[in-house]
């Protein structure tokens, strides 16, 4: 009892020979993009936790959010991360013509600016630690640190990734695997800029309002 009607005329071919359109670069970037969505949901969870714990009572008598966020100082971090993302993105523009020097220059600039960002963040944390605003002081501070530090950890992994790519580019040039990695890293690095927009607005600026 099959619902299929008999095929009219001669049968079409049963098997497919030749190329199937499985493009390895698109496969890899799609897979990486899906990973980025799951990463974005990690941040969604962290922001939900922050939304719950960023109430005055969660300061437990310690520093309030307004006392620990400095949006003007954090704007320097904004400049650092955005220019790092721009540098890397311009490196991928150089990739279009296979310009090895241009690509490497952009990556190195991105690394330097990324390190500046991390340095600014570390010094901010050091100042906070020195006034006793540590993550174990209160729920509010725990929530603040986990969001900012998770973003910072992502930045550090990206910098590591860039450092690993440099010898690979020098050694093997732009083969399929390395091009796919460069594209994935672009997705990853630009994502850090998007996350920073949310962190800056909803942690630093919103915190300063209260």
């Amino acid at each position, binding site marked *: 009892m099959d619902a299929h009607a008999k095929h009219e005329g001669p049968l079409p071919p049963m098997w497919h020979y030749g*190329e199937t359109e499985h*493009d*390895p*670069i*698109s496969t890899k*970037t*799609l897979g990486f*993009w*899906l990973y980025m*969505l799951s990463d*974005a*949901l990690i941040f*969604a*969870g962290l*922001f*939900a936790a922050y*939304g*719950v714990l960023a*109430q*005055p*009572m969660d*300061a*437990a*008598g310690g520093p309030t959010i307004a006392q620990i966020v400095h*949006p*003007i100082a954090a*704007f320097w971090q*904004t*400049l650092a991360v*955005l*220019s790092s*993302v*721009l540098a890397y*993105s*311009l490196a*991928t*523009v150089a*990739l*279009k*013509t*296979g310009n090895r020097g241009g690509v490497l220059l952009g990556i190195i600039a991105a690394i330097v600016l990324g390190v500046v960002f991390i340095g600014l963040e570390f010094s901010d944390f050091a100042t906070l630690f020195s006034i006793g605003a540590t993550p174990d002081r209160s729920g509010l501070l725990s929530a603040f640190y986990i969001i900012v530090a998770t973003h910072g950890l992502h930045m550090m992994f990206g910098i590591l990734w860039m450092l690993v790519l440099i010898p690979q580019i020098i050694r093997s040039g*732009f*083969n*399929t695997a390395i*091009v*796919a990695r460069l*594209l994935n890293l*672009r997705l990853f690095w*630009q994502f850090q*800029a*998007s996350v920073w*927009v*949310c962190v800056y*607005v*909803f942690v630093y*600026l*919103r915190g*300063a*309002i*209260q």
Partner: protein
Amino acid sequence: MTDPHHPEPDPLRHAEVQQAGTFGYVSGTILTIALLGVALLITEQKSMQPTPVLVTISGLSIFLLVAQAMLFFGLDVSRYNIWKSVSLILTVPLFILSIGLTVWMFHALGPVMAMPEMPGMPLQPTVLQ
């Protein structure tokens, strides 16, 4: 995986490599820095009420995220990007649900009645209230 029987096309010719554009990246960067600067000014000015400020900077951030999706990630409905766009659009409601419903339910728990006051911890209305 290199296959000697099917030599690969030049990876640099791939659409996702070729879609990179200086204009998109530079304008996206300038837009982000400018609008975040605007948000910073609005916040630091302290002449507006907290709630309108919050609404404004939230709106700015959403605008920036959409702009970055188009200018940085180059999301469109072309063959190479359509699945990225579709998957992002389908994920956005999940952000709204998880964060929004969480904030709503905790807000609905009502004022904290049973917690004894600790020194230096006066009960204050929150921004959400």
